[in-house]
């Protein structure tokens, strides 16, 4: 009930919630409504003759879902697979994709005006897929201000760059 009230409050204030995760040194934020669940890295079946960052497919309760390792794709972080490896399952409209990242950090609420346009350079990701940059306030432990890169994850995952879809789908 209180969740519902919170949600309502969020909607009223125009704020949006984001899930932040780390890739190497950088912190990224994605729309939390696109996140279906977060789970460990396990039981991935390899697919032959695909780029190395496409790790294969997993069984998500009867649904076959491809897994992308963002660390390999963007050449950051340390590529190890152990019990701490985290996979974010994204629900992008009709498609479900698993994405391996270095770590999941937080859920934050951002006002639209908190998101600043991104400069033309500076991030690992192509600026085309960036919604902007957001400054995160100091947390209670007194850590210093951080910057999160807000990513349009749907646009990124459905792009031809990722090779997750047939080109026909791309055109349409």
């Amino acid at each position, binding site marked *: 009930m209180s969740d519902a009230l919170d949600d309502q409050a969020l909607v009223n204030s125009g704020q949006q919630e984001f899930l932040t995760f780390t890739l190497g040194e950088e912190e990224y934020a994605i729309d939390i409504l696109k996140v279906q669940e977060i789970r460990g890295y396990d*039981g991935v*079946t*390899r*697919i*032959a*003759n*695909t780029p190395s960052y496409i790790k*294969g*497919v*997993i*069984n998500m*309760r*009867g*649904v*076959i*879902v*491809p897994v992308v390792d963002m660390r390999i794709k963007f050449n950051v972080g340390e590529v190890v697979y152990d019990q701490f490896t985290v996979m974010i399952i994204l629900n992008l409209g009709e*498609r*479900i*994709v698993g994405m391996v990242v270095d770590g999941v950090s937080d859920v934050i609420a951002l006002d639209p005006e908190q998101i600043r346009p991104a400069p033309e350079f500076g991030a690992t990701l192509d600026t085309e897929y960036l919604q902007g940059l957001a400054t995160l306030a100091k947390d209670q432990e007194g850590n210093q201000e951080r910057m999160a890169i807000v990513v349009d994850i749907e646009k990124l995952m459905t792009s031809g760059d990722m*090779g*997750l*879809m*047939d080109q026909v*789908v791309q055109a349409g």
Partner: protein
Amino acid sequence: MSVDLSQFHQVFIDEAYEHLATMENLLLAVDLDDPNLDDLNAIFRAAHSIKGGAGTFGFTDIADLTHALETLLDRLRKQELEPTDEMIEAFLQASDLLGRLLDAHQQGEESDQEAIQANKAELIRLAEADQEVAADQPSEPPLASASPQGGEGHWLIQLHPKEDVFAKGASHEAINEDLKALGPLEILQQPAEGKASWRLQADVGREQLEEIFAWVCEPQEVTFSREEAPLAEPSDDDGFGFFVDEKDLPAAQDAVEADQGFGFFVDTADLPAAKEQQEADQGYGFFVDEQELPIKQAADEKASAGSVSREVSKPTSPAKAQSKTSVDTSIRVGVEKVDQLINLVGELVITRSMLAQSLSVLDPIEHENIHNGLANLERNSRDLQEAVMSIRMLPINFVFGRFPRVVRDLTKKMHKKVKLKLVGEETELDKGLIEKLSDPLTHLVRNSIDHGIESPEERVAAGKPEEGTITLSASHQGGSILVEIHDDGAGLNREKLLAKAQEKGVPLSDNPTDKEVWQLIFAAGFSTAKEVTDVSGRGVGMDVVSRNISEMKGQIEIDSVEGEGTRIGLRLPLTLAILDGMSLRVGDEVFILPLTRILESLQPDKSQLKTVAGKGRVVHIRGEYLPLVPLYKVFNLEPRVTKPEQGILVVVESIHGKLALFVDELIAQDQVVIKSLETHYRKVEGISGATIMGDGRVALIIDIERLAKMNA
């Protein structure tokens, strides 16, 4: 009264489509020389149900058209008119129009009013063509015998002799006595100048009455007419009007029309009809007030069931007719719900095997209960899986059912005579396949009619029966389904095909076998038809057929004998959802091979392996040299064994020939649920799909055709 009816629109539309389909099937089955009353009644009921629903939901155009349809049908089923080809044609047209109207309503589009009016006019013309004639003749006794309330009907007897029969010695008293013997009698008109009339409440045949009057006057001097007295009183209209509410307007109009049209003592058999309409409409009016759709349907069914029982003074089988309409035991469920169910059951099976795996360490004697429970769980979940899978299975009649119409229309258009025979309509296959089968089958049937079956003259000249036969058959053959289209037409012409192939520049071997030549008809843009008709001849159809069938993982076989006919066989898997497969291991990965494609598996001897320069390796098996395809190379894996003599060779068959796949080991034979990789990912070369294994991992299913191509 302010309940929103639109929530029921979809239900009505779905139902109406069903009624239409029933109607069409029955119409096509009508034998013009000996129409079956049950069938005519069933058609009438279907039309009536559509009208009722349409009226309730305010689809006045549909209600209007069905009303015209119903009027004609009503006269047919009462045997006042003989069905003619013209009528059937008009009915079919009407049913097409209704289908289009339903589409239009569903999509909120405008309907084609002109066509409706034209068809309506035609129906009315047909219905009334006979009206005057019918009124003049001493009308046939209607078949109606018992009124729906269970009361008896009345005979209205009118004596109108040329001469005063009573003056000539006939005894009014004697007639009264004789009639009284049959049932309660009411004298309506005392004899005056020979004229007299009676109302007899008795359930007797016309013959009995004729007998009584035989010695009184000439047969044409007395009329007997059937009436359902109590309800036929015009005063009843008031009471009836009470039930009418605005939503019921079209239906109400009906009844009024009927009353106006037939009047009170019109001495025809139309009275029961008027009454019946009232009765049915009352049912509607009343129940519509309740705003309860299911009840309305029930009323509808009751009404139609009632009309059936009234018609069965003939020794037909009332029980059968009633059971047809009484209870609908099926539920309409969305396919996605069924698929979800299949997924969930699949999950259940996987969870069970994981549970079994972790419990296998427990001592079987100490934990006997757990092991027994697990065994039960396994049996139950397997049964459940089978039961759920069977939901997706439908009889092939869903596709075959449309062909009587297709054949009828095409033969008409092309002035040919073709009889369609359906065999094995109850054969069940997956719903997904049924939907995909419909297009290719239509093409094949069209082709058979257009190119296969000759014109009646040619057939007679060739010493064949004037009427050609096309047989559509379906049967289970092992793990697959064989659908055949067989015609007794001209057959394929080898020379013509070869000449055409040359003209089009289709590559062919020097001395092609018949099978190779027949395959030519599936090449795109290939048609030997002398001219392009609007039915076929563009050379597109067969191309579509072959593509659709291979999409369904099926195969096409053609046999043809010139002058005797052609047989085209489509061999299809039972279902697209389940595959009998062999699981095998390459490195750390598990793959599935379709079992139907596996010919044998063996461990080769070193001496059987040969190297062909530049072409890789081949394996020599019983005189044949088969290309050796190491799967670890195709799929870029780290194998456990790299020497074929240490692993296993699986010989598979593809349309490009046999292949020997080299794998690490075979694991087991499994029935697997096929899942698409493309839903969330994309097509993968050499892989046709994926499945989930007992341990919850994904295994890929190998596409042998693609593999063969990749290797070629």
